């Protein structure tokens, strides 16, 4: 329940995101920077990416990422520079490591188990299952229901 769901309390001013002044002149670099920013979490506003947030810290990190890219860093290295400071927590896409295997593979494992169970259930249902209700049985059902009243 979420009321106030869409209660963006932490967004002091909602017109957020990248400021024109931050942008890099090279469109290719800028688009890489946007891509990286979209997957970095803004720490102050918790569930927004720094690309969406207008918080001061998000601005600083956006600038940091752009500086790294200008300095010739790869996307991974630029992301790494932020992770070195703030930890895995800033990654909106959790890194793949043993601690996150259940997270990443859980859905697939569940699907397989679920599909297996469904198939088993389809195969091994009691063979002597009653046929669907015919008219007489429906009547009987109705009578039973009436008795309940």
């Amino acid at each position, binding site marked *: 329940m979420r009321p106030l769901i869409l209660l963006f309390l932490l967004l002091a001013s909602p017109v957020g995101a990248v400021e024109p002044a931050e942008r890099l002149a090279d469109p290719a670099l800028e688009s890489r920077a946007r891509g990286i920013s979209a997957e970095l979490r803004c720490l*102050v506003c*918790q569930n927004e990416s720094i690309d969406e947030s207008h918080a001061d810290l998000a601005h600083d990190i956006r600038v940091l990422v752009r500086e790294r890219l200008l300095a010739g860093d790869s996307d991974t290295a630029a992301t790494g520079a932020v992770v070195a400071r703030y930890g895995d927590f800033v990654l909106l896409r959790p890194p793949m490591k043993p601690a996150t295997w259940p997270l990443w593979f859980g859905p697939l494992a569940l699907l397989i188990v679920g599909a297996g169970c469904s198939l088993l259930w389809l195969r091994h249902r009691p063979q002597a299952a009653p046929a669907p209700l015919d008219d007489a049985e429906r009547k009987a059902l109705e009578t039973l229901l009436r008795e309940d009243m």
Partner: protein
Amino acid sequence: MRRLLYLAPVGLFLVLAGYFAFSLRPGYDPHTLPSAMIDKEAPVFELARLAGNGTIGREALKGHPVVVNFFASWCVPCRVEHPLLMRLAQREHIPLIGIAYKDKPADSARLLAQFGDPYRDVGMDRDGRTGLDFGVYGVPETYVIDATGHIRKRFVGPLSAEAVDHELLPLLRTLGGS
């Protein structure tokens, strides 16, 4: 076996409820983050001194354990922890290095003039870059740095008397400070 299958939902729910109860334990705040910089060397920085005489850099942190405190005149919680910082400086003689985060020098100076200056040295981090390199995500933040210049602990938010007595001072003692 079939029965067990029907017990699975309630079992799973109880595990879940256990986790929920665990995360409601007193003293647990899901909003605080551990620092990624623990046991790493403090980042390089070069900040103008508030006093106006030259700059302060990473070298100033080495040689003996120090406490680095990020503060700002515009930060209300900083005033809450200020008396504690004064106590640390005056009574415990802890070497405190202040870093004024995104603050105007005149404002920082006024703050320290008004409430007292607990710091041995204050650097001006005007653009917040040093804060970013330390992994600061909100002032005040306090870092304990050992004699070799490695970050050993971070406190987010205003220090409490409890945190000072039970965590900060014992840690400094083991680091062989003061």
